[in-house]
């Protein structure tokens, strides 16, 4: 089997030559210096920064703090708004990388706002799928609230599905007592897939000022320290809900990617790993075939099938 075919995976709305994509918020709209370090065409897809209806200036600084094997961020969904993204950001990306699938992360303070952003975003031919962000811990209205109550999550998913012209992946919050319940709710709402997991709510306090390091006080914890929580949640959800899962949460190495597949994932997104290693995505894509050989796995497609049938 050709190297490419081994890594190819197909998900609703997404024919990916490989399963590796930058996670939302860690790669902007592709308009950054990563393109100087590798060819973005190598990526399986790109998940762009959250889009809201109106421009958002985000939270005050500091927006970032370091923790052991993790990072806290409280960027606060800074973005120029869906219309500017569609008019100015995506065309640049699309012109340079016409074949690169784009997943648009969308957020809002109200259901109406989500629906409006979904309508506009999904109407674009440059967008292959939506990632419905019901799990951002860094905004004070909406955000995570939509992701912690099953009924609200189901209603929102259904409303977005009704207007969306592309498949909808719902991005779940790990800050819940029972992730399976939420996953089942969004599945009932018509979700085409799931993204798991968003960040865990955390805090660091500065010993000298006695105040939280982040201006927003709390922030979202990401990075390798949260990987065992992501693996557990994906394992639980993939056994309860029959939807493809884009896995994220601390992935750094090819081993981590395979661990997510064994938990029940169908594709992976990489966030925090970019900070230590800006070529994390292409490095993973290069390392995967050898790892598959080592573990005697024919292809990722077959691995997905084997894991599902062993469940």
């Amino acid at each position: 089997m050709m190297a490419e075919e081994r890594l190819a995976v197909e998900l609703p709305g997404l024919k990916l030559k490989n399963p590796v994509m930058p996670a939302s918020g860690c790669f902007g709209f592709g308009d950054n210096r990563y393109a100087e370090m590798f060819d973005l065409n190598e990526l399986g897809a790109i998940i762009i920064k959250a889009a809201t209806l109106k421009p958002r200036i985000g939270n005050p600084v500091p927006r970032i703090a370091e923790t052991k094997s993790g990072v806290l961020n409280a960027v606060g969904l800074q973005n120029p708004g869906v219309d500017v993204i569609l008019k100015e950001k995506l065309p640049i990306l699309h012109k340079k990388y016409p074949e690169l699938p784009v997943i648009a992360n969308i957020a809002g303070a109200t259901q109406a706002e989500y629906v409006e952003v979904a309508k506009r975003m999904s109407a674009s031919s440059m967008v292959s799928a939506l990632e419905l962000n019901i799990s951002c811990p860094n905004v004070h209205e909406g955000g995570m609230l939509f992701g912690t109550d099953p009924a609200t999550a189901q209603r929102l998913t259904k409303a977005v599905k009704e207007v969306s012209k592309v498949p909808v992946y719902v991005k779940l919050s790990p800050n819940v007592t029972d992730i399976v319940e939420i996953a089942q709710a969004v599945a009932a709402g018509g979700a085409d897939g799931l993204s798991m997991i968003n960040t865990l709510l955390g805090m660091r306090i500065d010993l000298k000022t006695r105040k939280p390091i982040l201006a927003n006080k709390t922030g979202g914890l990401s990075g390798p320290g949260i990987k065992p929580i992501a693996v557990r949640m994906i394992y639980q959800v993939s056994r309860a809900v029959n939807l493809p899962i884009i896995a994220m949460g601390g992935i750094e190495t090819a081993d981590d990617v395979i661990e997510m597949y064994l938990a029940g994932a169908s594709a992976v997104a990489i966030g925090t790993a970019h900070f230590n290693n800006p070529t994390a995505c292409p490095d993973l894509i290069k390392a995967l075939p050898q790892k598959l050989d080592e573990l005697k796995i024919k292809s990722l497609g077959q691995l997905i099938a084997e894991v599902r049938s062993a469940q």
Partner: protein
Amino acid sequence: MLTKNDFQIIAHQKSAPNIYRIVLQGEFDYAKVKPGCFVMLKLPDEAYQLRRPLAIAACDAVRKTITLIYRIVGDGTRLLSELAVGTQLNVLGPLGNGFPLEKVEPGAEVLLVGGGTGLPPLMLLAQALKEKGCKVSTAIGFRTAAMIFGEEEFECTGRLLLATDDGSKGFKGNVGELLTEQNSTSQYTSVYACGPEGLLKMVQRHFSATEAAIYLSLESRMACGMGACEACVVSTKDGILNKRVCVEGPVFDGREVTL
């Protein structure tokens, strides 16, 4: 070209209490280095998820070395200070826009103002301005004589105005008071500053009424260094956090940036 290559530590010593000077040898795009540019060092311990941004204090494209000068402020710089000569360190860079040297004329009188770990980028800048034929004055301040570093570097490139809070060496007081006392506002065509927020604000105030171009090099907590994560933003005149220190900075027009 932007690269992340392993450099080797070829010299590493203490220059002052808690201040270290490290010389790294390796390949990167030396042609792109301008005064004010920085690198991001990966710490050799897996628990750390963020690289540490440090300004380039000296740069030798022939020997393929860069010099960084850093203060121990937390766990990352402490770990750095323990690394032996010979160790490999991964260097991402060169990053950032430097000071806009093309805007200053040979022969111009320029002032550099620095404090704390704001000195390193000014060292490379002083060198470049001197090479360009400018008349360089540098005003730097320390808490006390024992803390001073970088004195020789700035004496080589022009006039050095030194202040210590306790008067143990040079002018007694801070750099702002030194500048006021010297009545030095009008002769400079450009003023370049790097250091703590208080110092930068003082420079803004001190020179706002003059004709001088003001350039401030800022620090900000960074994650990616690539302009992708929006962690490092600062505000310009319009008051919104719309400029990224890692790509639009770290040097900003001192008349536009809001501190």
